[in-house]
C-alpha cells in the first residue's frame, strides 16, 4: 500500500513538472517568496529610511537613474526596491493567512453542512446565501473602516468574506462522496463519522480544493493590494504592495515608476499562480 501511494505521489509530481510553463511559474513564484523572506538580509536600505533630497529619483533604466536606487525612490526618498521587498512580505503573509482562514472556515462549514443533518445544512447554506449576496468590497470596507486595519484584522475580514464559495464546494463533494459504496460500507461496519472524515473526506476535499487554493492566493494578493491602495489596508509605517501603489498614484504623471513597478510584481505573482493553477486543475481532473 505504501509503495502504491508513493508511486501515485511520484506520478503526480512528475506530471506537474513535465509542463515547462508550470516549472517556470513555480520557480518564479518561489523566487518571489524567497526574496520576501530574506528581505532584511538583501535590502540595500532600511524600509523607512527617508532621504528627502533624493525623492522621486528615477530607476536605473531611465535617463538620469542610477544603480543607487535600481527602482528609483518614492515621494519621501525611500528606496522602492527596498519597500517592495518588505511590502511583498506583508502582502504574501496576508494572502496566505487569508486563504488558510477561507479554506479553514469553508471546509469545516462544508463538512458540517454535508454531514450534520438537514437543520444544520439549512442554517449554514442560508448564511452562505446571505454572505454571497453581499459584495465583498463593501463588506470589507465597512468592517475595516470600523476597526484599525492590521495584518490580523485584514486577514480575518478577507477570510470572512471569502469562505462561502468553499463551503458550498465542500458540501457538494461531501454529499457525493457520502453516497459512495465504500462510505456506506464503512458506516455499516460501525465507523465513526470523525474517522470517515479523516480517512476519506479530508484527502478528497483538499485535493479538489488545491487548485482553488492557488487561485485564491492570487486573488487575495489583489484584494489586499486594493484595500491598501484605498487606504484600508496596511497602515504606515508598515508597507505592502498596495500601499506603495496608493502612495504613488499622485506621482503617476511625472514619476510613474512609484506606482507601476509594485504593480508589475503583483502581475508576476498572479500570473505565475494562474499558470500553476491551470496545470494542477488539468492533472487533478484527468
Amino acid at each position, binding site marked *: 500500500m505504501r509503495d502504491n501511494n508513493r508511486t501515485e505521489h511520484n506520478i503526480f509530481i512528475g506530471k506537474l513538472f513535465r509542463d515547462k510553463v508550470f516549472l517556470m511559474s513555480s520557480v518564479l513564484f518561489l523566487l518571489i517568496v524567497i526574496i520576501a523572506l530574506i528581505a532584511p538580509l538583501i535590502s540595500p536600505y532600511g524600509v*523607512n529610511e*527617508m532621504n*528627502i*533630497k533624493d*525623492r*522621486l529619483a528615477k530607476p536605473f533604466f531611465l535617463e538620469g537613474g542610477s544603480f543607487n536606487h535600481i527602482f528609483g525612490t518614492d*515621494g*519621501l526618498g525611500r528606496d522602492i526596491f527596498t519597500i517592495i521587498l518588505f511590502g511583498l512580505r506583508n502582502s504574501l503573509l496576508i494572502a496566505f493567512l487569508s486563504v488558510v482562514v477561507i479554506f479553514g472556515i469553508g471546509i469545516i462549514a462544508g463538512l458540517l453542512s454535508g454531514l450534520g443533518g438537514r437543520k444544520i445544512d439549512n442554517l449554514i447554506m442560508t448564511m452562505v446565501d446571505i454572505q454571497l449576496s453581499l459584495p465583498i468590497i463593501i463588506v470589507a470596507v465597512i468592517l475595516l473602516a470600523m476597526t*484599525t486595519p492590521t495584518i490580523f484584522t485584514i486577514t480575518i475580514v478577507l477570510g470572512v468574506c471569502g469562505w462561502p464559495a468553499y463551503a458550498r464546494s465542500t458540501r457538494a463533494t461531501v454529499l457525493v462522496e457520502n453516497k459512495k459504496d465504500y462510505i456506506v460500507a464503512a458506516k455499516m461496519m460501525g465507523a465513526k463519522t470523525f474517522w470517515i472524515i479523516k480517512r476519506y473526506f479530508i484527502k478528497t476535499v483538499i485535493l479538489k480544493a488545491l487548485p482553488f487554493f492557488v487561485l485564491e492566493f492570487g486573488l487575495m494578493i489583489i484584494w489586499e493590494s486594493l484595500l491598501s491602495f484605498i*487606504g484600508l489596508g496596511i*497602515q*504606515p*509605517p508598515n508597507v505592502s504592495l498596495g500601499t506603495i501603489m496608493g*502612495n504613488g*498614484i*499622485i*506621482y*503617476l*504623471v*511625472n*514619476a510613474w515608476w512609484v506606482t507601476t513597478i509594485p504593480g508589475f510584481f503583483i502581475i508576476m505573482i498572479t500570473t505565475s499562480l494562474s499558470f500553476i493553477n491551470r496545470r494542477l486543475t488539468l492533472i487533478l481532473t484527468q
Partner: protein
Amino acid sequence: MKISLKIILLSMVFILLATGVVFAEKDIFVFTSAEPLTGNWDPSSHTVLAQIGIENHIFDKLYSFPCGADNPGKAIPALAIDYKYIDELTLEFKLRQGVKFHDGSDFDAEDVKATLDYYSDPNKPGFGWLPGALKTKVVDSYTVDIVTEKPLASLFYSLGLVPMLSKEDIDRDLISNYPNGTGPWVYDRQTGETTIMKANPNYWAGPPKLKEFRWIYVPNASTRLFGLLGGDYDVVERVEAEHVPTIEKDPSAKIGVALSVESKWLIFRCQRPPFDNALVRKAISYAIDREGIVSILGASGAPADAHIPSAKFGYAPTPNNIKYNPKKAIELLKEAGYADISKFPTIDYITSTGFYPKTKEYAEYIAATLGEIGIKVNLKVLETSPWLEAACNPEAANMVDTGWCSGTPEPDQVIRILFHKSTKRLTFVDDDEISASLDKEQGEIDMQKRYAILANETLPLLMEKVPALPLFNSVMIWGYNDRVKNFRKWPSNNFYLKDFEEPFGEMDVYKTE
C-alpha cells in the same frame, strides 16, 4: 412630401436642441473642490473651508478682503458702503440700498442685526469669527451701530467674515435647510457631489453673464488633474506640485499660484497628557524637521516662522522660531520628566488624505523623525470627512494635522480662535498667559502699538509654549482651463465670478467706492 417636411422639421428641432446644449455648456462654469461640503447651509454651524467657499458665491458680507502681502488690509465694499467709528466702542455702517435676497425680500439693517445676534452665541462655531458677543443697534433702515464692551482692534476685519442672513429665515429657523443669500449665485440643487447654482438676475453689482455655476467635490488630486486636462472642469484647486509641469505643458490649461493666508498646523491636544505640558510640546516641535517638510511639499508650501502667516496683518518673523534639533528635543523631554524616552506614551496622530497636498507623505516623515528620537507614533490617515470629524473631537488623537485659512487680514482669526482659552477649539489650550497676551493685543486699537505687542510679546510667547506648531504656509496652486481668462483666486482662498465677457472675461470684483 409630408414625410420629408416632418423629417426636415424634426432635424431642425434636433439641431436647435443640440446647439442649445453647446451654448448651455459654454455658459456653465465648473469648479472642483478638494473638500466636501458639510450638508448644513447654516454658515454659523461650521468653519469648513469648502463650505465657506461656496457660501461666498451665495451670500454677501458687509465687505470682503482679497488679502495679500502687498496690501493685506484692503477691504472691498459689498453690503456695507461706508463705515466710521462713532467712538472707540461703536462702529457704524451705512448699508447698500436696493439689495434683495434670493427669495425676493429686501435686505436692510434688521437683517444685519439679526445675523450678528444669531452669530453672537458662544456655542456656535461661527462665534469664533467675532471678537466677542456684539450688540447691534438699528439706527435706521440702512444704518447699523455695532457696540462692544471694550475697544476691540479686531472688530472691523472680523466682521467681514460673516455672511449676511435674512432675519425672516433666522426667525423661522430655516437657515440650515436652504441658502437664501444676496449673492451673485442662487442655489438651485444638489446631485451627488455636485452643487448647482444659477446666476442671480437681480444681483446688485450686475448679474453674471454665465448662466450656471457647478461646484463639484472631487477628492482625488489626480482625478481633478485629468478632469481639467480633459476639459471637464474649468478650475481645479489644490493642485499637487508634481502636477504643475503637466498642466503647464498642456496648451489648454494654465496654472495660478498665490501664497495664501492658510497655515498648516500640527495641532497638539493641550487639554490632556502628554501635551498638557508646554515643555513636551516644545520638545516634540524640536524633533520635527519643518525644512524637510517644505522640501516634500515643493511648490505647495512656504516656510512658516511665526504663528501668523505673512499675508496677514501682524506678521513678524519670530526671534525664537523653533529649528529642527533632535538633541535639544531629547534634552527638553528629560527636563519634562522623560529621562527614559521609552516611557513616553505612544502619540496618536491623525491626518487627512486627498484634501491638502502631501499630508500623508509629510505625516509619515514626521512619524519617522519622531521615531528617530524614540517616540512611538500611531499614525492614522483618514479620508476628509472622518478626518474633519476627528479634528473637531477633543477626545480624538493627541496630534492632528489641519489647516487654518481665514479670508481676512485679521490675525485674531487665527491666533485667537486657535489659542485663546475661551474658544475651545482644536488645541483646547487653557493657558492664562497666552490668553492675557491675546486680550492685550486685541484691546489695542492703535495699529502700530498693536503690531508691536504681536511681534514682541504674543508671537514669541506662542512659539515658546507652542500649543500648535505652524508647519508651513500654504501656497495655493490651482489649474484652470484656457477658456477662463484672467482667473485669479485670492490668497484668502476665495474667488468671485461676476462679469464675464465671452467666453469668460476679466475676473474682477465689485466696484470700490
